[in-house]
């Protein structure tokens, strides 16, 4: 079936829905999602959305800008960061006007809480910048944006899985999607297409990401001969629930929780003597790995304990002389944990049978967030080379995009900000583009490539390989060799293994030969996307011979600004990867060593 729209938005998380609200005000817009919109992963974000409202204490967007650039280990583009942090304030108010139920201060204003890396730039102390709605800020953003889309009668195609981007003569012409319920292919002929498809944490074994986060958008981009940017930078959050990867917020450590190894030692004393368990995410993830490697995991296994039991927390408060603002000794009670960390307590009770008030929680680093992705400019327009040449009509926003506002390491609360600011900019610029440009014709048989991919999978009758085995081996390989710690030999081993897996992927079995709701075929297609993304991640990780933010090379442990203060671009052509570079936009802040 053929459809005609001005703007087609792929993905219905925060970025996609915000873009949809803005695009639909000006032009004929459709939103396609392989899920129901409210199932999108934006909904799982807990902590807050960064914006220097200054509702509790002095703050300003300039400090937010600097904190973000420093947190990025100076790889973020400073012009883009400035836009995000300055537009943050108004976009938070805009969400509030849409109905977002933020928590409130005594004065009835939006409540804010401190978060890692966000500081008063004068005193260097944490500043309350994260605007929050209980511990479900992402859920509230997703719900509010979806509500507004219903109010504005945005057209949705739910459970339409996009498989291809149509390009002709270098200009965007639309997308091809399969309607999951029927198996029918649909061609969406459009002037503009936005990819807001989210991340690809499922490349790794232990991840906080949803099953659906398989990097469909960036894989399509690679297959259409376009580059991805900074793919070697993937954030591992230090405290995921052991084996499951479900996130346990930094707030646990904010309340005084400590990490302990198998000997019961609070090991962050050694790695970050000043701020200890509140060091940045990359530092703590590396420390946990080093403990495990030294045989100091719990029972010799690959996890440590996150301990927020009042007796433990109070012991360290006393040891370190931690005081309340009124100079009384700081203490925590069981009731504090129940009221301040209710969702965390629910997760650990449900999944581990662990009551955080009475027992320590088993945790390990969990693959969390893609700093890299589809390269864009500050209007979310996709750029396709080192000179920032814009591809007409093609946009990307949210985690899938690399503007780059996060550089080598993202600060907490900046992802919820990113999706709103750049989702809005995408929607606005799509309207402008549609008004200035005509709809160009489709190429012949625009659905041919998508059909060929699906039929090729469906017809694999006698394969001996199970997709699940290949996925599992890929995830183990990436966890072991292209995770928190990386070095040349290991990454090379991973690349060899991924090549083997790609070959075996050609021989997988598909049990379901049907058309309707064939998730057997679609999961296999998603695995193909994951394998491509794993490969370009490994190749760019091998190429970048330095350590910066989330990318840590044991054989090159130092940051090297002379050689590597630049973005990577990676293409995949005829099964071979090619690497190029793009300069970092540095406006006001000269790179300095990152010390907290």
């Amino acid at each position: 079936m053929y459809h005609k729209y001005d703007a087609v938005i792929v993905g219905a998380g925060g970025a996609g829905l915000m873009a949809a609200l803005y695009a639909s005000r000006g032009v004929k817009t459709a939103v396609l999602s392989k899920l129901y919109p409210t199932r999108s992963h934006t909904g799982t974000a807990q902590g807050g959305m960064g914006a220097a409202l200054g509702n509790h204490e002095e703050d300003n967007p300039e400090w937010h800008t600097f904190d973000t650039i420093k947190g990025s280990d100076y790889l973020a583009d400073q012009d883009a960061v400035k836009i995000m942090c300055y537009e943050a304030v108004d976009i938070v108010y805009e969400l509030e006007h849409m109905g977002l139920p933020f928590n409130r201060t005594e004065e009835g204003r939006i409540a804010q809480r401190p978060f890692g890396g966000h500081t008063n730039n004068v005193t260097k102390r944490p500043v309350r910048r994260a605007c929050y709605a209980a511990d479900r800020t992402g859920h509230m953003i997703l719900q509010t944006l979806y509500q507004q889309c219903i109010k504005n009668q945005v057209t949705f195609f739910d459970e339409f899985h996009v498989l291809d981007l149509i390009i002709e003569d270098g200009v965007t012409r639309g997308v091809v999607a399969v309607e999951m319920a029927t198996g029918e292919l649909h061609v969406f002929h459009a002037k503009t297409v936005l990819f807001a498809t989210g991340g690809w944490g499922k490349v790794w074994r232990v991840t906080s990401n949803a099953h659906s986060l398989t990097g469909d958008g960036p894989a399509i981009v690679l297959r259409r001969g376009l580059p991805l940017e900074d793919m070697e930078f993937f954030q591992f959050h230090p405290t995921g629930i052991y084996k499951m990867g479900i996130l346990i917020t930094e707030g646990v450590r904010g309340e005084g929780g400590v990490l302990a190894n198998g000997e019961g030692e609070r090991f962050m004393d050694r790695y970050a003597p000043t701020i200890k368990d509140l060091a940045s995410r990359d530092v703590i993830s590396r420390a946990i790995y080093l403990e495990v490697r030294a045989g100091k995991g719990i029972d010799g296994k690959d996890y440590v304990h996150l301990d927020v039991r009042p007796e433990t927390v109070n012991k360290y408060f006393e040891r370190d002389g931690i005081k309340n603002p009124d100079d009384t000794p700081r203490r925590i009670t069981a009731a504090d944990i129940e009221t301040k960390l209710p969702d965390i307590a629910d997760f650990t009770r449900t999944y581990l049978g662990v009551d955080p008030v009475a027992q320590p929680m088993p945790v390990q680093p969990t693959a969390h967030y893609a700093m890299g992705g589809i390269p864009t400019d500050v209007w979310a327009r996709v750029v396709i080379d080192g000179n920032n040449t814009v591809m007409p009509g093609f946009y990307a926003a949210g985690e899938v995009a690399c503007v780059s506002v996060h550089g080598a390491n993202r600060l907490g609360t900046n992802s919820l900000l990113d999706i709103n600011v750049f989702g809005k900019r995408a929607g606005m610029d799509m309207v402008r583009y549609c008004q200035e440009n005509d709809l160009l014709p489709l190429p012949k048989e625009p659905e041919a490539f998508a059909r060929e991919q699906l039929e090729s999978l469906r017809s694999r009758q006698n394969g001996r390989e199970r997709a699940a085995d290949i996925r599992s081996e890929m995830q183990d390989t990436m966890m072991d060799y292209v995770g928190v710690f990386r070095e040349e030999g290991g990454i090379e081993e991973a690349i060899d293994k991924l090549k083997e897996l790609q070959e075996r992927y050609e021989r997988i079995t598909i049990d379901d030969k049907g058309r309707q709701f064939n998730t057997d075929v679609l999961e296999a297609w998603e695995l193909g996307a994951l394998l491509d993304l794993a490969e370009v991640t490994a190749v760019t990780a091998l190429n970048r011979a330095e350590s910066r933010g989330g990318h840590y090379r044991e054989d090159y442990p130092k940051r090297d600004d002379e050689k590597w203060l630049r973005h990577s671009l990676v293409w995949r052509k005829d099964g071979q990867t090619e690497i190029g570079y793009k300069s970092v936009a540095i406006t006001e802040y000269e790179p300095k060593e990152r010390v907290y």
Partner: protein
Amino acid sequence: MFVMKVQLRIRRFNPETDKKSWWGKYEIEAEPTDRVLDALHYVKWYQDGTLTLRRSCAHGICGSDAMRINGRNRLACKVLIKDAGRKITVEPILGLPVIKDLVVDMEPFMAHYRSVMPYLINDQPPPGTERLQSIEERERFDDTTKCILCAACTTSCPSFWVKGEYLGPAAIVQAHRFIFDSRDQASQERLGILAASDGVWRCRTIYNCTEACPRDIQVTQAIAEVKKEMLLRGL
């Protein structure tokens, strides 16, 4: 590592090959702390790829995998094997047309949701900053903001089974979230919708919804609050 042998009985239906549904029986090994979702994945990934279900976040937030597990509406990602037992029965949620296996047509449910005007209505021009709301005003509707639209409540409701036109608990919860938001100006209109014949008065206070809610929302109480508000306003 302690491993349990588990028998799964799953109600299967493939619209392309089956005239009516049938029971698929599977034996798997699982750890007691595995989720029922893990068990279903094991079947799908290693025994029978045709098994079809929805899922995404796998930790009880996205609301994709509501299903009937041992006769009760649950999210498959929030039930552990050790709590479900060695013999587990899994069926699609009731009252919505089955598309395939555990996948049901959500559209009737979403249509009810959309019909209660589930969005903030306030036609006054907003201030340059946030609209003010006190902590107490915000707390008034906190519980119903937790809804993830999984449909576990509505499809556990006998009144909904009997009459699919009944808006159902989830739609009422979503309406409640705005009716009691101090910033909203359309509660009268929303209450009018809920006062109609397929609105709140079809609720028989059976409490299935509250028992089914994976977010621990006090659904029955929210419905009662809506009913009370109607009476107060003489609707």
